[in-house]
């Protein structure tokens, strides 16, 4: 037996069939899809051409800077955090602005060694933690039929989506930052329909179906210690 034969023979057994495939399929296709509704390539090319001409006109008018910074306001952020103490300070500040489910404490987080990031990332992480925590809490509340806890989770997540999640313009680079004055902390979503999926899951949960928030909770909770619904 060759080494490769032995490697192949040592492949772990497949998982049992994924449960509720059709329900998952239905849930996914019920959400908006950027690509699913895409125009044919020829139309897209025309659109790109028109957009390119339009952009050239704008740029030739000498307003590129104003467009980039004043009109849309999104810009690249080249101020980096290298010091874990600074990172933790920003994270701590963010946690003061956010709310967690009853009885839950903020987990310890810091900047990993040999890492740099921009100044908005600690706040974004805090928002992500709060979001996941409330999604898990909402899942439990629905399963426990605790209406008060359900309303609390719904309210907290609505507030997060409205005030602490911003969607970057299409094609933005990794280090994009929103307009100055955006209320911190915030988490930046790519313009790929992700926020629509999140809202769809919350609408399902508000209607008593926890499947979407439960999936997000399972995928994102990691080491978070979510207290039980009381």
């Amino acid at each position, binding site marked *: 037996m060759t080494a*490769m034969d*032995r*490697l192949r023979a*040592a492949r772990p057994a497949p998982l049992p069939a994924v449960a509720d495939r059709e329900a998952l399929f239905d849930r996914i296709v019920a959400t908006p*899809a*950027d*690509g699913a509704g895409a125009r044919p390539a020829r139309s897209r090319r025309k659109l790109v051409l028109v957009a390119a001409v339009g952009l050239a006109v704008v740029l030739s008018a000498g307003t590129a800077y104003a467009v980039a910074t004043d009109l849309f306001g999104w810009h690249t952020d080249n101020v980096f955090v290298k010091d874990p103490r600074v990172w933790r300070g920003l994270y701590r500040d963010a946690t003061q602005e956010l709310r967690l489910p009853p009885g839950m404490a903020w987990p310890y987080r810091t900047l*990993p060694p040999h890492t740099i990031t921009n100044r908005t990332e600690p706040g974004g992480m805090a928002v992500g933690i709060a979001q996941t925590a409330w999604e898990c809490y909402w899942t439990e509340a629905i399963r426990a039929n605790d209406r008060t806890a359900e309303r609390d989770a719904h309210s907290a997540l609505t507030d997060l989506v409205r005030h602490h999640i911003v969607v970057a313009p299409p094609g933005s680079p990794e280090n994009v930052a929103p307009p100055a004055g955006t209320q911190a902390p915030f988490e930046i979503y790519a313009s790929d329909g992700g926020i629509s*999926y999140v809202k769809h899951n919350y609408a399902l949960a508000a209607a008593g179906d926890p499947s979407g928030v439960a999936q997000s909770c*399972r995928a994102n909770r990691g080491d978070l210690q979510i207290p039980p619904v009381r």
Partner: protein
Amino acid sequence: MNPDQHPPEDPEARFRRVFAHLQPVADYAARRGSSDPEAIAAETMAIAWRRLDRVPADDPRPWLFVTARNLLMAEQRRTTRRSQADRALARPEAAPAVESTDPAVTRALRALPERDREALLLVAWEDLTPAQAAAALGIAPVAFRVRLLRARRRFARSLSADGLPNTPDVLEVKST
């Protein structure tokens, strides 16, 4: 309509073909040590639906594995961000928890650099062709073949050192 043009395919019908790979993606996540492979597979499919125009219609598997792999890496980053005490013990460069049914194979896999191990496993466990595996890793097919050659040699050496009788170092892969 130009008779040479096909009418645009119904997105749901197209996604149905992508979704058919749900189980292999879940298996892939499980074999790479995910704590919740079904959630990784479900999230991969949700992303595929949102970005359906970017998913290759003829062969979505490499794209799906790239996406699942990114989600796995995010999961592993979250897992390593544990309490301060845990972090003191954690090694950021530690190998992902790849497990096989053969302890010697597991040890030999863990001794490999991560990118060599992934090249090997995409072919041996996920049954990708070298061209598909190259696409999944975002490298040229020629570069993948070089990496695979190096990986299988290292793997064979590592396995031999673990007590396996000397075996021919031969790799048969499906042609592209």
